[in-house]
């Protein structure tokens, strides 16, 4: 099966910084329906991987490919198809939604900028997306500040799914949320992915969040892949001391 998204021997260096490689020889593939978790701590290279996966930057060496073809950031038509198919969800629902815009306008933004739909078709799709994420029919007429953190993240997810993407690339999508809301939003991701045949790439420092959602896991440290494989295997039999340390550091409830 052709991977949806793949990084192949990718290295990346931020221009003008002599701090070395942000990513060094990173390879992994996202198969259709196989949610992937990318785990690491500060400085691991998570944000850089995210920028590459979203087509916001091109690698120094190696390739990022989409549907088996290398991604070319200068190919405007190709990038528009890419952006329709690969949508981001960001971490902080408090800062990623424009407070001056009504929710329906926020959710409909990808439809306008990617010229996917307009007029009554757009309105129908916005309403369907809001319903899909479990918000009321009148949510579109309100403003972000009228919603709780969990509801705002649902609005951000509605915006991500409105264009009918095949992949959601989510950057710490539940880290700013309370534990109960966190679990509810992860369940929402799981349901939407199943219903719409979407694949999720989840970038997080939190192994538990990845474990809850993702079939495979890539552990990054200092810009390199230290371990990758089936999540179940990575958690049960970590191959490296670093993954073991990450697991051991997670606080547990007393049994």
């Amino acid at each position, binding site marked *: 099966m052709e991977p949806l998204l793949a990084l192949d021997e990718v290295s990346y260096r931020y221009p003008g910084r002599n701090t070395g490689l942000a990513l060094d020889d990173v390879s992994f593939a996202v198969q259709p329906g196989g949610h992937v978790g990318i785990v690491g701590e500060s400085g691991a290279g998570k944000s850089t991987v995210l920028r590459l996966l979203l087509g916001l930057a091109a690698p120094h060496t190696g390739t990022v490919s989409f549907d088996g073809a290398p991604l070319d950031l200068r190919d405007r038509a190709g990038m528009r198809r890419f952006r329709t198919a690969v949508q981001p969800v960001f971490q902080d629902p408090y800062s990623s939604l424009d407070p001056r815009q009504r929710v329906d306008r926020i959710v409909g933004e990808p439809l306008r900028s990617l010229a996917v739909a307009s007029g009554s078709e757009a309105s129908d799709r916005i309403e369907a997306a809001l319903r899909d994420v479990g918000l009321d029919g009148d949510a579109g007429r309100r403003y972000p500040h009228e919603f709780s953190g969990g509801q705002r993240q649902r609005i951000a997810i509605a915006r991500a799914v409105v264009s009918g993407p095949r992949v959601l690339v989510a950057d710490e999508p539940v880290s700013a949320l309370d534990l109960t809301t966190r679990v509810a939003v992860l369940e929402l991701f799981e349901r939407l992915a199943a219903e719409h045949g979407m694949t999720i790439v989840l970038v997080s420092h939190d192994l538990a969040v990845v*474990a809850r959602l993702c079939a495979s896991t890539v552990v990054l440290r200092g810009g390199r892949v230290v371990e990758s494989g089936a999540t179940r*295997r990575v958690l049960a039999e970590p191959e490296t001391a670093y993954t073991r340390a990450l697991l051991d550091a997670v*606080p547990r409830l007393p049994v």
Partner: protein
Amino acid sequence: MTPAVQVTDLRITTADGAVLVDGVTFAVGDGERLGIVGESGSGKSLTALAVQGLLPAGLTATGSVRVGDVEVVGAPERTLRGVRGRAVAPVFQEPMTALDPLMRAGDQIAEPLRRHRGLRGAALRDAVLEAVTDVALPEPDRVVRSYPWELSGGQRQRVAIAMALACRPRVLIADEPTTALDVTVQAQVLDLLDRAVADRGMGLLFISHDLPVVARTVDRVLVLEHGRTVEEGPVQDVVRSPAQPYTQRLVGSARALQDALDAGRKGA
């Protein structure tokens, strides 16, 4: 002896009468570790601020907050300045906001030492180095000369803890002190807090939405929902057999994430 902090029937209201914290009562004695757990909007952070007389303008506290033998509710600013730092000292979630970005770490730690303990000159310099060494910061000489942005998130939180410990408060008030940190750094900072509090026989008021973090850190816990105490008791009991539906939900969510971690992905 009177507890270090005794909060009785604390009520916090807005100017237009909304009740944000409603009838909260608890005590923290010397060497005791109390957790307040709850979700966004539960009133846990406001309670922590009220203990220090730091409520934002427009909010009013009634009831009683006694820190040692000082009544904080309604106290003038001059009285409160004597309480803060010396009787109760805070550690906040994001050390970058607690630290002055334009001031070297050493100077920031020196300030409360000068103000509350009257240290000057060589004695002050020694006390600053000792405070930095105490929180297990490597290369203390380099750290005291560093600006906050030259330090990592974990190092900044250690500096903030050093500042809080500097005046030997009776109770340390930590509000989500590790939420912004990586999980391995979180474990180190929690260990540091454990040790700091135990070594000094200090009380700890620990506030977090993260039940597993609270459970590993405190002895007793207070569960807040919408400003009211719904459950309290020894943290082991509350976590093992939560009596209230709200607590059951908190425990259930924490266990769901933990089970995912323990079992790997279900059905995969």
